[in-house]
């Protein structure tokens, strides 16, 4: 009996959650917006000696998308863990358009 009530409770909560997340509001669990947004990032970064930094050597997945927060996080990783103060340019293409950022001394400056 308890198990049956629990099943009903789980089912009802899931249906509500699936409808809300699936069709309304921001992406979360039960939201499936695969490929719906342009998301692209091109980095042209180098270290203090001029050696090119290949971001693909560090990131876990192969998605080209990297937003501003992830870029800040990546630059902080290069500074704090690898001791690299990157410089160069990063071009981010997302739903709001194309953004060209300048990186100097391990930080985004523009």
């Amino acid at each position, binding site marked *: 009996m308890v198990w*049956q009530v629990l*099943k*009903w409770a789980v*089912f009802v909560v*899931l*249906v509500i959650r*699936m409808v809300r*997340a*699936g*069709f309304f509001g921001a992406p979360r*669990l*039960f*939201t*499936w*917006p*695969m*490929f*719906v*947004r*342009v*998301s*692209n990032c*091109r980095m042209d970064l180098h270290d203090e000696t001029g050696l090119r930094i*290949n971001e*693909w*050597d*560090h*990131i*876990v*997945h*192969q998605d*080209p998308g990297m937003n501003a927060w*992830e870029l800040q*996080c*990546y630059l*902080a*990783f290069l500074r*704090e*863990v*690898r001791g690299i103060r990157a410089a160069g340019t990063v071009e981010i*293409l997302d*739903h709001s358009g194309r953004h060209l950022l300048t990186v100097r001394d391990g930080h985004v400056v523009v």
Partner: protein
Amino acid sequence: MWWFEAVVAGFSYPASSIQICLFRVVLAIAVWLKFGYEHGRGAWHYFAADSYVRYRFHREHPRLPIRENGYRTLYTAKFVAATGLLIGVAPRAAALVLAAWFFFEMCYDRKFHTAYLGLCALFLATSPALADALTYRTLVQALALSPVDALRADAARTTSDVFAQVLLVLLTSQMYLSTAYRKLRSGQFMSGSALHSFTASLHGQRHAQRYRDTWYPSLMVRYLIDLPAEVAHRRWRVAATGTVVLEFALPAALFVPELFAAAVVAGALMHAAFTVVLPVRLPPFSVATVGSYLLFVDPATVTGWIGG
């Protein structure tokens, strides 16, 4: 329709256990595919001290104190669980461990296919019939008796608890309808620009990638990627529209016995096309999703197929 009857009856419906067990095996294969390629791409070292994955994880989740040893313990547990799910040893516990792993993985590599596999594992764990069929015992019996007798014995086992099957069918249906709706509302998807940008970017950076993710056929590069944007968008638009139409239609078509075979073929072809776009990462998702089509079949029909 059996699904509504089962819901109205309190998730109770006469079924052969082999139906849900077959999906258990399919999901385990999908999970092994995913774990296998990730291991080959250095997943064992993701939480090494100088790893960006670990750095990013701790920055985003400062209250989750997972270090290299903890990660590797979970990593080992996921392989044990995937094996248990495949051969039917403590399959419910194995499914729960896998679900826990996938939700952990979402903390450092958020992917929709990971969420789908995690939810499948979680819902599968609610089935009491997971150890009824297609387990290591089936293999032992097949060797001792004959494969036909072993499968016949498995097919004879029944369950009336179809809660897991109801949830899994709901999940796949919701996933298709939700993604079709989101795509339809996305100007960038429907115009073809999102698909062109994604594929062109991966193709353009293929030689820089430490672990290459794409091997697009030259015909695809010539006609869909390496050409002026407006031409490429126009061509991708056909694929985008076809995807949305199929994703809207599939859940309903899978429920109609007369349309089931056609729906399976159409769904499999659509997932094959997705797999061309991401040939390394998407096969586990495609295997699990197409495998879930079997759960749409009325359990009474399955019982009829196996001569029950």
